[in-house]
């Protein structure tokens, strides 16, 4: 019997026990009237409880009840074979865990877009040479490169001088952003310094990505010159974690890899 008809039967017009009972009682009474021995009549009838149950088994509560019974029975069976059960549980745990972990990585790396104004239009600039190492990259180059057997080389890392020249002269993009680094030891005003994510970026970094400042100012062309006092902008996460989102974080003395810098802004969050 389908679940739906069980449900309907339970909600509307379901023959309750009392009704079934009365029907059976009527039957027995008729038999007795006919002169049969009531006990013999009852015996011949079979077990009234069985009939009730068989008829009743068409409702939903009985179905749920039997599902529960099945579940309990299943659990008991599992307890009886603990080694098999344990190995099943462990495989499930490992399987689900691995899937979740991989999905988290894929989600972060591929599915979630970056918290910038127009993530779809971001591009990474690469260079390719037909043969050997490009002369312009010979100085101040870091990062990874790939080569193939024919001597062709590729990379996405540019030296600062080439970057500046490209940023000045290129017309293909709205802006060309440069960044370098990854980690640094950062101490804010005498607090204990710690390793944290830090990028050295070109002055157009925030405008180029379309990330608004929450506090203070963004970098300007003056900052992007050799010999100027280094200035730093706090990422949204760093600001929340270390300053609890307080507004008095501007103009603080910050030491980055033991070089004095000054905080001038705080970036907005995603």
């Amino acid at each position, binding site marked *: *019997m389908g679940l739906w*008809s069980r449900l309907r*039967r339970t909600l509307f017009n379901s*023959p309750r026990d009392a*009704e*079934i009972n*009365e*029907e*059976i009682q*009527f*039957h027995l*009474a*008729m*038999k007795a*009237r006919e002169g049969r021995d009531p006990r013999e009549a009852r015996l*011949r*009838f*079979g*077990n009234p409880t*069985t*009939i009730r149950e*068989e*008829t009743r088994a*068409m409702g939903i509560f009985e179905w749920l009840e039997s599902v529960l019974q099945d579940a309990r029975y299943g659990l008991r069976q599992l307890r009886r074979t603990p080694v098999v059960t344990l190995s099943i549980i462990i495989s499930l745990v490992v399987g689900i865990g691995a899937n979740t972990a991989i999905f988290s990585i894929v989600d972060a790396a591929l599915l979630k877009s970056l918290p910038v104004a127009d993530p779809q239009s971001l591009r990474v600039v690469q260079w390719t040479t037909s043969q050997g190492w490009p002369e312009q990259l010979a100085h101040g180059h870091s990062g990874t490169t790939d080569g193939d057997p024919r001597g062709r080389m590729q990379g996405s890392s540019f030296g600062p001088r080439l970057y500046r020249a490209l940023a000045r002269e290129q017309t293909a993009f709205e802006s060309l952003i440069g960044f370098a680094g990854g980690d640094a030891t950062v101490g804010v005003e005498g607090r204990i310094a710690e390793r944290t994510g830090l990028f050295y970026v070109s002055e157009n970094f925030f405008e180029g990505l379309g990330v608004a400042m929450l506090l203070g100012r963004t970098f300007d062309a003056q900052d992007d010159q050799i010999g100027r006092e280094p200035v730093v902008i706090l990422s949204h996460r760093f600001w929340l974690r270390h300053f609890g989102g307080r507004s008095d974080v501007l103009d603080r003395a910050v030491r980055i890899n033991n070089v004095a810098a000054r905080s001038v802004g705080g970036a907005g969050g995603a």
Partner: protein
Amino acid sequence: MPKSDHLQGSLELLVLKILRRGPNHGYALVHYIEQASDEVLRVEEGSLYPALHRMTEAGLLKAEWRQSEAGRRARFYDLTAKGRKKLEAEEKRWNNVTAAVAKVLRTVS
């Protein structure tokens, strides 16, 4: 008289056929089947009532509490239109099957 298993498949057909004459209750059905078959067929109440409920559920019968001739309240079953159609089909099927069985019995000696 041993339990008559051969009644199993035909119980539904008999119920439909008897109810064709008018609404009746379970006890009368048992009585009638036994009388009409000269006590060859005996209906187990344990299968009759579940069958009646099943058939009601399937929309072949409709049930109603009424005063019986004995003055007690009894549950009366009656055919629905669907039940009537089912009876026609089942009766035809039954006749075909029994005729076929009879034919086989006649030809094989």
